[in-house]
């Protein structure tokens, strides 16, 4: 066998097994593209025609981090504009995979590291899969997240391998399967403990445990000692016609509940599975899979999602002008409330030491109790070991004394939203801290300049605005004031990255980006109630638009206010008033949160809270009104677009894409619409301006569009 391939290296062993090592020359991870598939195909043909070759072992030479195949080249998918072109491409792959599957010479995939999308489909076309239990090993078919479905026969092969219900789950949700789950479900046939290597080369790879097991299996398959695994009874029963029908209808229902019908890909995937279930893999792929993927791949929705994917990747790799000074090991948290505890929990999960300070021990115990409950759940689910569980708790050092902060490099302030308290905290911190220690505030309503007004060393002050609940909200706004030093920005960005969050650098302004834009939406919803439009109608309209759908269920503005707490909303609105008359409160908000009493909620146990209507009737002369749904949507969404343009003009962020991502991850603007400004662009700037002017004439000058 020759080995004059660019992205593959091969080695023929004495026992007749050829090792094919994939090593993508252009990328840090292995990615399947058109050219690479061609090359791969040549190698395969070579192997099939070579008489010395008894079996093939397919593996990857990427070691740091290990990756088997991280999927198809998304750039290529993005550039597909023609349905036919896509179909030809996919059908070529189908033919190739069929030849692989039907070949007499067994092909074994030796998997270490990520094995995603097209990579997993390639592994599925092999006769045997050996996986190593490296912590990075993970298998998934994440195509639906990009608005497409698996296109290399995944929808056909997977159900036949592991049975219907798990296959539907994997394909329709795109979730990650970790090695121990994979061996249990039969997705891989062998699981081998991993042994770290420094240098992975084609000459020595056969000595690595998972590859040597793969070679062993390949020889056994070649000599008919082993046959492919058979389905067990349970999966066979699940494929009975009645049960099958039930499974599909249940899957559809669940998908509809989760996507609200806004995302066609998961449903299409289920249809492809159903259509091809009784057919051979090849027929199923040709008749059911390829028409569907071709249709999806050229759709706008998929392009939107791919754009967002790339934008997110960019955000993950946010570059900094300066280098953070030194390695950050311990982070101080001031305030052990809801946010403080969540931030501390996240930091200790990522291996940081955490100093958490509050005024009274009770406050800290409450916060730590929350973290401990969370971690003990993780331990009960066996996602972490006992020592790791204990370490996570031990990394958080609670204290009441400032003197413990002497050696801390960075603190995050998460106390109550009272400006004087925050300022006093900062000055107390400055008294004990090192001169270059960073002070990051998690404020939602004040600016860094306000908080740092009296600071001795302003360069160290920055905002790090997290969102609640921290676990699922990936965004963190990094508010940079004029006086913040580049080193500070760099350190905070690197911290955010290490916390697994998406850092978004914004200019210091009231409400930063997300709260500023979102507040227009929330205020408008409250004004609408006061006008006479029922709670139900407002939230329903927003839900129809798809707000917050990506969190798993749609959520209207009033529901969101209930979630955030009206008290917080009052704060944010108060502080945003300085932006201009377009942001105005309403007495109703104050009535909703009477002093000394629990604030009212708009929704109570899934029903409209009648108490709100009572308040309205008593204090605001309220009469029920009806407004057409599209008008409600316009009133909710268009001010956001308007505010986004203002932010762009004020250079709060440097690109419209960032606003789109921020609204997507921070405010629940639906991803399938491509992002706030992208959506606005599709609607047409002229159109929106006119509509805003109309609204302004009808409902008040707050709708007056922004003139640049």
């Amino acid at each position, binding site marked *: 066998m020759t080995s004059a391939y660019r992205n593959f290296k091969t080695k023929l062993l004495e026992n007749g097994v050829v090792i094919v090592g994939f090593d993508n020359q252009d990328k840090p991870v292995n990615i399947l593209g058109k050219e690479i598939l061609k090359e791969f195909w040549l190698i395969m043909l070579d192997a099939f025609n070579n008489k010395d070759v008894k079996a093939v072992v397919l593996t990857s030479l990427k070691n740091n981090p290990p990756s088997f195949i991280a999927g198809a080249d998304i750039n290529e998918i993005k550039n597909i504009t023609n349905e036919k072109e896509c179909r030809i491409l996919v059908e070529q792959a189908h033919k190739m995979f069929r030849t692989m599957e039907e070949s007499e010479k067994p092909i074994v995939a030796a998997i270490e590291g990520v094995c995603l999308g097209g990579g997993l489909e390639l592994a599925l076309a092999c006769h045997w899969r050996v996986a190593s239990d490296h912590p990075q090993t993970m298998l998934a078919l994440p195509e639906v997240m990009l608005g497409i479905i698996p296109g290399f026969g995944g929808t056909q092969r997977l159900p036949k391998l592991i049975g219907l219900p798990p296959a539907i789950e994997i394909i329709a949700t795109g979730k990650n399967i970790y090695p121990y789950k994979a061996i249990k479900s039969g997705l891989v046939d062998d699981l081998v403990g991993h042994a770290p290597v420094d240098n992975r080369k084609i000459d020595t790879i056969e000595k690595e445990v998972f590859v040597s097991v793969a070679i062993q299996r390949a020889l056994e398959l070649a000599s008919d000692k082993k046959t492919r695994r058979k389905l067990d009874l349970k999966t066979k029963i699940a494929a009975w016609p009645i049960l099958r029908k039930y499974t599909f209808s249940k899957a559809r229902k669940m998908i509809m509940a989760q996507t609200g019908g806004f995302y066609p890909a998961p449903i299409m995937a289920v249809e492809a599975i159903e259509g091809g279930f009784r057919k051979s893999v090849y027929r199923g792929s040709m008749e059911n899979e390829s028409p569907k993927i071709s249709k999806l791949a050229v759709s706008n929705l998929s392009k939107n999602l791919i754009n967002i994917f790339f934008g997110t990747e960019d955000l993950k790799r946010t570059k900094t002008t300066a280098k953070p000074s030194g390695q950050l090991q311990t982070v101080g948290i001031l305030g052990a409330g809801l946010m403080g505890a969540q931030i501390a929990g996240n930091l200790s999960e990522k291996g940081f030491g955490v100093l958490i300070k509050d005024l009274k021990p009770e406050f800290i*115990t409450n916060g730590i109790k929350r973290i401990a409950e969370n971690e*003990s759940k993780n331990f009960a689910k066996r996602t972490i070991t006992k020592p790791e569980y204990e370490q996570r708790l031990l990394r958080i050092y*609670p204290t009441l004394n400032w003197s*413990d902060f002497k050696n801390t490099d960075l603190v995050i302030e998460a106390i109550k939203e009272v400006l004087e308290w925050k300022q006093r905290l900062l000055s107390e911190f400055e008294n004990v801290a090192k001169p270059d220690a960073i002070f990051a505030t998690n404020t939602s309503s004040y600016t860094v300049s306000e908080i740092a007004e009296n600071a001795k060393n302003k360069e160290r002050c920055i905002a790090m605005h997290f969102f609640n609940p921290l676990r699922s909200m990936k965004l963190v706004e990094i508010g940079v004031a004029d006086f913040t030093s580049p080193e500070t920005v760099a350190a905070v960005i690197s911290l955010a990255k290490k916390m697994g969050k998406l850092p978004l650098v914004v200019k210091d302004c009231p409400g930063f980006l997300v709260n500023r834009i979102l507040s227009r939406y929330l205020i408008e919803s409250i004004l609408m109630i006061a006008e006479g439009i029922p709670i139900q109608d407002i939230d329903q309209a927003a839900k129809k638009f798809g707000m917050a759908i990506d969190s798993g269920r749609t959520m209207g503005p009033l529901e969101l206010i209930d979630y955030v707490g009206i008290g917080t909303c009052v704060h944010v609105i108060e502080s945003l008033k300085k932006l201009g008359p377009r942001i105005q409160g309403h007495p109703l908000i104050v009535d909703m949160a009477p002093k000394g009493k629990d604030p009212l909620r708009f929704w109570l146990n899934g029903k409209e809270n009648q108490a709100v209507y009572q308040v309205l009737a008593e204090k605001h002369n309220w009469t029920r009104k009806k407004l057409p749904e599209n008008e409600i949507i316009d009133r909710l969404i268009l001010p956001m677009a308007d505010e986004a343009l203002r932010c762009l003009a004020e250079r709060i962020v440097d690109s419209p894409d960032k606003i789109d991502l921020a609204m997507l991850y921070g405010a629940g603007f639906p991803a399938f619409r491509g992002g706030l400004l992208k959506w606005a662009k599709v609607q047409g700037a002229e159109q929106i301006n006119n509509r805003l002017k109309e609204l302004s004439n009808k409902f008040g000058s707050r709708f007056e569009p922004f003139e640049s």
Partner: protein
Amino acid sequence: MRTVIVDGFRTAFCKEGTLLKDVPADFLGALAVREMLKRMDNWNLPPTAIEYVIGSSVTEPAHAKNIAHVVSVKGGVPDWVPGHTLNHNCGSGITAVDEARNLIEKGVYSCVLVVGVESMSRIPLLYSDVVKEDFYSLQRARTMKEKIAITLRLYSKLFRFWKKEYAPQVGLIMGLTDPICDLIMGLTAEKLAKDPSLGITREDQDRFALRSNKLAAKAQEIGIFKQEIAPLIIPTGKDCFYVDSDNGLRKFSKAEIFARSKPFFDKRYGTVTPANSSQITDGAACILLMSQSKAHTLGLPILGCVGEYNVAGFDPSRMGLSPVGAINKLLKKSGRSISNFSTIEINEAFAAQVLACLKVMSSDVLTKKFFSPYGFDKALVEIDSNRLNPNGGAIALGHPVGVSGMRLIITALKELERRGGESALVSACIGGGQGNAMILERST
């Protein structure tokens, strides 16, 4: 080269079955070690400064053997720092400090961490041998028939758990029973209390217990214990709580209430009651020792110096008297007399035992009677009550066996500081018939 104690603290002592009952000993110890590391951090001393760890734990849990290394690594000391655990019953704490001193003075290490951990709430119940045998044979059983037969047999035994041969054995009581004389510690105290030559009455014991409680309550009130206790926030899976003070004190107790308490060990004729004995307690403590030169170079605060140490053997069935022997030997060795010490801490295992020690110390006749086989026949000077356990003792605060010795040392050093004294004496009786004693000095 002298050895100095740089810093030492203990956790609050919590009565068995109260706050700390769900906290495993290794986690509690790790919290204590972490606290020490944080204090070191505040002096700009990295965890790597610690070169060796000595643990003191008597009821070491089954899941964390050599608990010294377990807690040190869990608490944040690098894993290349070695450590061993020592068990010298109730004297462990003092012995551990002495051992650390030996390592430092021989020049092996220059900085040693001593950590004591005891979780007496979590001492397990043990299956009796008869039941255990069945469990093992169930594991070995091959056929289904065998398995069913053994399961049924086992079931019938477990069901009759009240029968003596099937009843689980209490690990705590087993641990407190001396296998040499087959007496539980309380009965060795009874033996002293009933000795006519000592003449200790129930009233004497109760009065002493009351004194201990009153002194401790006063010390707690005026914040003396705040100086030695490190407040901890302790998370368990279900809860998280703040522990900053000892909870075993009978603060508002009166003599009448003590008199009402029933004898526990000799239920009919005894005088040793739970109220005049030490309590079963959970707790931990940490002491950081260093060579004097190193502490001076680093400019660290110094709590005190470790002086001479001695341990003496004695009759196991009267183990409560053993401090007399240990103190006698120590004074002879160091050439000092009782009056040299500003404060004296004798661990209060039982009121009867401390009273017996005091009586023997002050009487030639009694010393001769009990200690002539051991080579002493002259009485020591009487200890005046102002200097003995000035802040109460184990009767009020509790007696987590492996930690008590360390508490005595920390309390004595802090008391020296308050009194402006020069040297202190600590001593403890050790189950099995030994006593140890140590001199501590304020460094100058």
